[in-house]
């Protein structure tokens, strides 16, 4: 395979977890909730995918376990941030911290301090070195766009993010819609985490999501809260991730550490140029309390 072709496929591989997490977050933010706990949900998904795969000997079931784990963490987030109406950013930050501790303790407890044992069967490659999850992400993009913009459910969800009071008045259960959105977002983040472990090199390292949850947040913002925009942004970020890992092999003459910093620098640059005129949902981040 040519170098360019390999780089393109590598970009798609790197973009897949970002896209999955960003699509989930897109729905969450459209409902008016900012889920900063994405990173922690991805991390939990990454570990649970490995554990689930070991239990069941089937990486696909591992992905299901990861999705459920992501949703459970999201339920906790939703309980505090949606149900109790606590500050969403605070709860998100704390959820990240907790996920770091939970996955760290669990992985150490299960496998002792040598993390080399922590492996499982990877997801099989279907075509062009891509797993089923890439297909899932690519199919989910148009489907979510259609659901958000062309169905009654999508309209109700968007109403919760724009004018929750008006939505409630017209009979939409705002809190329930937001909670469901958060659960969906957690599920997608869990799958994205599985993508990092069983979808790639099937091992778990503490903190292995390495800020990808936050990059997914950046993707939603720079993708202008539109699934198609998320796809484009995820591909750009995937490309940067790919450059970071394989830049030197591709002949980019930069020190290794600076190449690794590239995705984060580019994230800042893209946000810097795209966030000026925000098209965020009007009630994004504001807790809703039923009158």
């Amino acid at each position, binding site marked *: 395979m040519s170098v360019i072709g390999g780089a393109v496929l590598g970009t798609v591989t790197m973009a897949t977890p970002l896209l999955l997490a960003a699509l989930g977050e897109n729905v969450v933010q459209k409902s008016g909730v900012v889920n900063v706990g994405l990173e922690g949900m991805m991390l939990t998904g990454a570990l649970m995918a490995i554990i689930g795969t070991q239990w069941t000997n089937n990486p696909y079931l591992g992905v299901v376990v990861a999705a459920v784990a992501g949703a459970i963490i999201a339920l906790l987030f939703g309980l505090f941030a949606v149900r109790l109406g606590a500050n969403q950013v605070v709860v998100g930050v704390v959820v990240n911290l907790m996920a770091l501790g939970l996955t*760290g303790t669990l992985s150490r407890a299960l496998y002792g301090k040598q993390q080399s044992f922590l492996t499982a069967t990877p997801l099989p490659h279907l075509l062009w070195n891509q797993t089923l999850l890439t297909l899932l992400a690519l199919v989910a993009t148009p489907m979510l766009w259609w659901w958000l913009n062309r169905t009654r459910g999508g309209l109700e969800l968007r109403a919760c993010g724009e004018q929750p009071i008006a939505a409630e008045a017209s009979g939409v259960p705002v809190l329930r819609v937001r909670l469901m959105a958060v659960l969906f977002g957690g599920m997608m983040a869990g799958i994205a985490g599985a993508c990092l472990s069983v979808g790639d090199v099937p091992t778990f390292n503490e903190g292995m999501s390495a800020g990808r949850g936050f990059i997914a947040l950046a993707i939603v913002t720079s993708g202008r809260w539109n699934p198609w925009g998320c796809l484009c942004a995820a591909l750009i970020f995937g490309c940067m991730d790919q450059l970071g890992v394989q830049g030197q092999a591709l002949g980019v003459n930069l020190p290794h550490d600076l190449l690794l910093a590239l995705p984060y620098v580019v994230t800042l640059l893209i946000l810097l140029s795209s966030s*000026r005129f925000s098209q965020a949902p009007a009630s994004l981040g504001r807790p809703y309390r039923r009158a």
Partner: protein
Amino acid sequence: MNESHPMPSQVPPLTPTQGDDLSRQPSLWKRALLVALRGFLSFVGLALLLLLTFVVLRIPPLKAMQTLWEGAFGSAEEGHWYALSATLVQTTPLLLTSLSIVIAWRAGLFSIGAQGQLLIGALAATALARIGEHWPAVCLQAGMLAVGVTGGAIWGWIAGWLRTRRNVQEVISTIMLNYIAQYLVSWLILGILREKGGHLSESETLPGPVLFARLIPMAWSDGIQTSLHTGVLFALIAVPVIAVLLFRTPWGFELRVLGQNAEAARVARYPSNGLRLQAMTLSGALCGLAGVIELLGSSTGSLPASGFAYGVGFTAIPVALLGGLHPIGILFSSLFFGALTQGSRNLEQNAGVSSVLIYIIQAVAVLTVVGVRAWQARHTTGETE
């Protein structure tokens, strides 16, 4: 107050919703007492939480608590100064970084960039140490402190600028800046700032006189060198300074109004963006200071390529939240987590309990506090309406 100065209808009044008050101001002591009381209750809750965690993990709880306590505060046989010093050394950077979080979060900026700002502070100081190798020790030490504070301030300012001029959310930008800072450190430390032998992945060790002096005389601790250094004084001075700045100056008042209600700050014509920028810069400066203090308070003064002050910048957030985002409260919560960090090392060595466990304890504690406050806020608004 509302009768004499009716507010425009679309602006929520400046009355408190979450136990914090801008309109009625009891004395500083009364407030401090309340915060301290809340801190004490948190402490009891945390102790119970610890016990519960041990029970869940099937570690004998009383034995574990004793190991934890002896790690943090020493025992009668081995003396108290050594452990106590180590605890205070752990507390120092936590205190400074959580003060930094208080400044930013009080202004409504959810910065999670303490770790990056701390690293940049230490990196800038290390760079100066390489340039000023032959300077007199006092000059170099003062210079390193100044450069470190400036470095941290610049790193904080970047996030503030991105927020105020480009509308980039600080939650995302500070995390990105953390990673950039980490890679910058490893690139420079493994590159031009590497120790001259080139064997170790860290910078050159600093000569003894540049490092902070030890505070506790050896005679007290039976001739054992204890680790408490003069850096702790910076942190202890910073607490009242920040408390006065936040609660006894017009600047602090405007900052807190901005954080509680940005719309009110806009109507009152406070310079909102200027305040945000200043808050992020000050917040970064405090973390930069913490970075230099960590460096100068260590036994060698060399900055490793990775793992420097690991986790401090993130622990700062629960510390700040449990301290009620108040400098006095933080004094207690940082001491608690300093003791917990130090004690859990002892626990890890003697009982094989993972030290990542602290993160879970922190998270559960903060979720409890956040949950209780949110529930209270709901409850009280329900009553007044």
